[in-house]
Structure formats: structure tokens, C-alpha cells
């Protein structure tokens, strides 16, 4: 019988305190409207560049690629402060969180020199082209094809729900590069700079009328061999490794924290309700920190990351429920009251919390498999 290994609490390094103070001072002086779900819907390229200038993007990348040689736990500190403040971090989020590490791991020297310094400056944003109309949870069923064309490839297919593709300087596309291959075999990741011939990015408006994700149509778009990420055919392994980074970060717990903060400032929550949320947040943060420490130690805690995302994203809507129960306000995106605006953001973005990055049902399946229940 397999069992979940015990998740040890992560301990922040001593440098963390000074770093945290710097980030807080920066945030206190910055000009932005705090918002719920800021890492998906709060894009501000100028803010991203300002973070880059402070050395807070690409933190874990080595200095020779424009990074800052910091530990993942130091990045954890910066990221949780930005999220707790509801800062507009959406533009660079994907590039900083997963494309940077993935490029460092799998990229060619030329790719690293081309993209990593720009990512660390906040001047190169990325989108993820995994999902397709017929490939959602079952990602291995992607149909976008990559066909050989001289010293390169031609990509044909449609990606959907591509967050931030309209702001991105490049998209990382997962495509089937071996005709006739099935499931996990024969998949390859391609780096496609945007805009590009043969690539059309069209908005998909979300239910609230906002534009944060897109349809990306690839119509024979040409990609040279030099922009294949990692080894051809190794796409599945690379994508699944990325998902461990994608799943358990503080953004899977803190999406609605700005709402909680506003409700607390207003004294809108009775002690019992506030305490229930505070206790949960404290524990989930420890769990997220534990996964970060395990990743840092070179382990791949896939089941633990899945479990933290499942419980963390559920918690995000527990905040919303408590505010609804006690604050006596209605959600209103156009309200002069920031609490009503934050509540509106939290309510309309909520369905996405438990879908993006792997649905809760899929995550629980991963946990069950980790336990040997199958």
C-alpha cells in the first residue's frame, strides 16, 4: 500500500525577514487598486517591470541569465506578499512561475539567453497553450499538430482558455509532433514568439465580460528547431513537471485574501468566522510552504501539491461565503465601496479557482492514486 509521505513544515531562511520588509515598503508606496484574483485578472505591465527592476522576478534564476540566485523559499515570501496585497501581478505571472524554471531546466543555451533575462526584467510575458476545445482534463488528447518543415516545424490547431495571450510576448504550445502517436508519447513543447504569422489571438470574454483568456489559432505557424523546448517527444514529462510548480503555490490559497483583508478592516466579520478562516489560512500556508520546501529539496511531491490546491482553492471560496454571510453587502463591480467590488471579483472568478491548473476532481484522483487507491 502506497502512502502519502509526511509533509514537513517548510522553514523560511533568515534572509526572508529583510526581504519581506522591502517588499512591504515597496507595496505601501505603489499605486494600485488591490483586487481579488490579482494573479489572473490584475495585469499591469508597468507594475511587472517595476518588480523586475527590484529583482523580484526570475528570483531563482542564476545571475548569468539575468536572475538573482535566490531560493524558491525567498520567492515564496515575495509572492505571498504581492498576493496578500492584491497587487497587479497577472502580466508576468506565468513567465515568472513556470516558464522561467522550465526554460532553465529544459531550454537550450540560446533560448535561456534570449528569454530568461527579459523574463527577469518583466519585459517578456508568456502564455500557456495546453488546453484545447477537446482536450481539457484529458490533456494527453491534444490535437494541435506539429509537422516537420525543413529545419523547423509548422503548428496547426486551436488552443483555448489561454490566459494573458493578448499581453504575452510568447506562448508555450504543447503539440503532437509524431504523427500517429498516442497519449503521453510524441508530444513536444514549442516556444512561439508573439505576434507571429499564422497565429491569431482572439479574446474569449469571461462571464463577467472581462477579457483575460483567449483562443489562439495556429494556422501553419512556423517554429524553427531552435525554439523547440527540451527534447522533441518529451513534452508530457516536461508539462507534468511544470504542474508541480503550478499547483501548490500561495496563489492557490490567497486569491480572495484581499477580500478578507477589507472585511477585517471594516470589522465586518464576527470573531468566530474570522478565526475559522484565519486558522485555515495558517494551516494551508504551512502546507504550501511544506510543498515549496520539498520542491526546493529536489523532490516532486505531486500528490501533496494536488491536495494543497484542492483544499486551498476551496478555502478561497470559504472567504467569500463568510463575507456574504456577515458583511451585509451585495457584490457590485461598479460600487464606490471597495468591499463590494472585491466581493464581486471573488464571486465571479470563483468557478475558475477549482478548474484552472487541474480541476478538483482530477486532483483528488491524483491524491487517491498516490495513496494506492485505484
Amino acid at each position, binding site marked *: *500500500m502506497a*502512502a*502519502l509521505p*509526511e*509533509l*514537513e*513544515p517548510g522553514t*523560511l531562511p533568515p534572509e*526572508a*525577514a529583510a526581504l*519581506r520588509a522591502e517588499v512591504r515598503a515597496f507595496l505601501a508606496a505603489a499605486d494600485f487598486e488591490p483586487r481579488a484574483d490579482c494573479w489572473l485578472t490584475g495585469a499591469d505591465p508597468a507594475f511587472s517591470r517595476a518588480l523586475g527592476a527590484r529583482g523580484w522576478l526570475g528570483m531563482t534564476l542564476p545571475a548569468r541569465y539575468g536572475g538573482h540566485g535566490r531560493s524558491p523559499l525567498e520567492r515564496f515570501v515575495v509572492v*505571498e506578499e504581492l498576493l*496578500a496585497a492584491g497587487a497587479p501581478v497577472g502580466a508576468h505571472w506565468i513567465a515568472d512561475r513556470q516558464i522561467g524554471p522550465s526554460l532553465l531546466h529544459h531550454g537550450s543555451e540560446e533560448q535561456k539567453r534570449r528569454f530568461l533575462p527579459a523574463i527577469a526584467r518583466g519585459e517578456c510575458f508568456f502564455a500557456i497553450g495546453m488546453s484545447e476545445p477537446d482536450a481539457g482534463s484529458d490533456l494527453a488528447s491534444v490535437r494541435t499538430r506539429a509537422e516537420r518543415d525543413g529545419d523547423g516545424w509548422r503548428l496547426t490547431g486551436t488552443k483555448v482558455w489561454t490566459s494573458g495571450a493578448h499581453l504575452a510576448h510568447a506562448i508555450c504550445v504543447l503539440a503532437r509532433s509524431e504523427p500517429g502517436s498516442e497519449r503521453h508519447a510524441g508530444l513536444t513543447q514549442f516556444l512561439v514568439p508573439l505576434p507571429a504569422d499564422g497565429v491569431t489571438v482572439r479574446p474569449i470574454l469571461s462571464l463577467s465580460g472581462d477579457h483575460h483568456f483567449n483562443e489562439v489559432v495556429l494556422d501553419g505557424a512556423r517554429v524553427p528547431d531552435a525554439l523547440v523546448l527540451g527534447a522533441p517527444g518529451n513534452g508530457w514529462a516536461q508539462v507534468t513537471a511544470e504542474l508541480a510548480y503550478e499547483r501548490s503555490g500561495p496563489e492557490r490559497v490567497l486569491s480572495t*485574501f484581499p477580500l*478578507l*483583508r477589507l472585511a*477585517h*478592516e471594516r*470589522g465586518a*466579520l*464576527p*470573531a*468566530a*468566522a*474570522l*478565526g*475559522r478562516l*484565519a*486558522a*485555515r*489560512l*495558517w*494551516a*494551508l*500556508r*504551512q*502546507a504550501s510552504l*511544506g510543498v515549496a520546501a520539498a520542491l526546493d529539496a529536489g523532490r516532486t511531491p505531486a500528490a*501533496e501539491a494536488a*491536495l*494543497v490546491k*484542492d*483544499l486551498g482553492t476551496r478555502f478561497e471560496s470559504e472567504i467569500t461565503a463568510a463575507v456574504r454571510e456577515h458583511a451585509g453587502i451585495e457584490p457590485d463591480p461598479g460600487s464606490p465601496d471597495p468591499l463590494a467590488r472585491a466581493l464581486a471579483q471573488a464571486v465571479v472568478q470563483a468557478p475558475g479557482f477549482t478548474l484552472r491548473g487541474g480541476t478538483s*476532481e482530477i*486532483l*483528488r*484522483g491524483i*491524491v*487517491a492514486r498516490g*495513496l*494506492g*487507491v*485505484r
Partner: protein
Amino acid sequence: MDDLLAATADRIFAGGGDVWAALTAAGLTTVGVPEDAGGSGGTLEDAAAVLRTAGYRAAAVPLAETGWLAGRLLAEAGLPLPDGPLTAAAADDLARVPWARDARGIAVVNGDRLDYYERGRFDAAPGANLAGEPRDRVVLGPEPTASGPCTADLRTRGALARAVQLTGALRRALDLTVRYAGEREQFGRPLGRFQAVQQAVAELAGEAVVADVAVRAAVRAPDDPVAVAAAKANASRAAGTAAAIAHQVHGALGVTAEHPLHTVTLRLWSWREEYGSEHAWAAELGGRATAASPLWPFLIGA
């Protein structure tokens, strides 16, 4: 160190016989009590490793009471550590003192003083929790055996001890459930092949793991009131979810006196209340959080 302790303790609990004598012989009843005070030494994390194992095995012994509670209180008060099982109580709360009838003595927190009452200087009228563990009504005699200074809050310490025990019991509930889901067959296949069952087991695991990591973090910061409140609140919350899922998956067999699941779930349901339920600790934490400003630094303690 704590892995080794846990393994030793586990062998003793699994071995049966006179568990208390074996624990005492192995020096496991006073782990976390300094050696110069008569204990076995070691850190609170070491003590937690033993206590978690006791929770896992649903061991009916006053381990938390003897070392974690009374032993540390006596050591801090500069009082000698008597041999034998001990317990602890607050002077104003003597209605359900754990294991009092079996204790060689009671360490009673009385404001900023610790009073130690040797057996014979108190009466214990039997009571019990759901799991049948003694929770006795104590009447103290006129004179303690000895007294010393005390700065500890017994409820906080007790809450952390029970939280540790809960995480052991949670893991056992998970293990029993995983095993049963693999063994029991219906409709021609093991229960674990049904996705509804898989999802339930994953939820149990989620609650157990989050509570566990929170409690481990609190054991490293036992004087941080936010940490302890959050740890007990999560462990107590997880107890209800885990017991419900474990029983649902076990079907009718799980609600019998014959099947071992009840030794775990009866403790989950008892321990989640003792030294404060998730509701009590949430209210306590919420009271502090309400007064704190801003909220975020208060919550993360940084």
C-alpha cells in the same frame, strides 16, 4: 531521533501486554522533560513523535498527561518528577481530569503557582470520554504535597498535545480506509475502483495532511498562540471529516465493536473537543485577529 523514537514506541504499542511498563522501561513516558529534572530529555518534537504514534495506535495510556503536561510543569516548577503515571489539571476546572484515578499524582495549575498533589491527597470520581478513557471528577485535599512557580497555560499545552494525538489518529483512519477500500469488493471490484470512493478518500487525506503539517509547525513554535490555535482548530476540524469519511467507506462493519476503526474514531470525536474544539479555538484566534491590524502580518507572524 524522532523517527527512531516513533519506531520504538510503535513496537511497544503494537506488542500489547503491559504497555505502560514497557514505555516506562524504554524511557518513553517522559520524552521532552529535561534529563536534569528527571525526565528522558529530548525536544518537544521528539515527544510529539511518540505521542503521534500513541494516537495512531489508539493506545489507552496517559502519555500526554504524564510527560507533555505534568512532567514539563513539574520540571519548570523545580519540583521532583515522581515515577509512574501523572496527570495535570487547572485548579478551576477539575470536572474531567484525564486519567486521575490511575495517576500517581496531579500537577494543578493554580494561577502563577503549580501545586502537586500526591495520590491520597485527592479523590477521583470516575468519568470517561467517548473512547472510555478516564475523565474523572477530582476533589483536592486541603494541602498540596509541594508547590512551585508556574507560567504555563495548561489549556494551550493540552490543546497542542491533543492536536498531536489527533494527527496520529487521523493517519490511522486514513490507513485503515485505504486498506479497506483495496480489500472489500462489491459489484465485482474493490471499492477503491469506484471514483466516488476515491474522491472521498482523497478528501480524508487532504484534511489529515493539512492538519498534520500545521500541527508539526506548531510543535516547533509551541509558545506562539496563533500557531497552537490554528493547529488545534485544524486537527479538530479534520477529525470530524475524517471520521465521517472513514465510516462511510467502511460500511456497517466499521460501526461494530469488533472492527478496530471505532478505537480511532471514538478518540477523534473525543479529542477534538478536549482542551477546546475547532469552534472554541477559532473564536479565540478570531478575537486576537479582530484586534490585530493589519491582518496579514498577524496571521503569518512576520
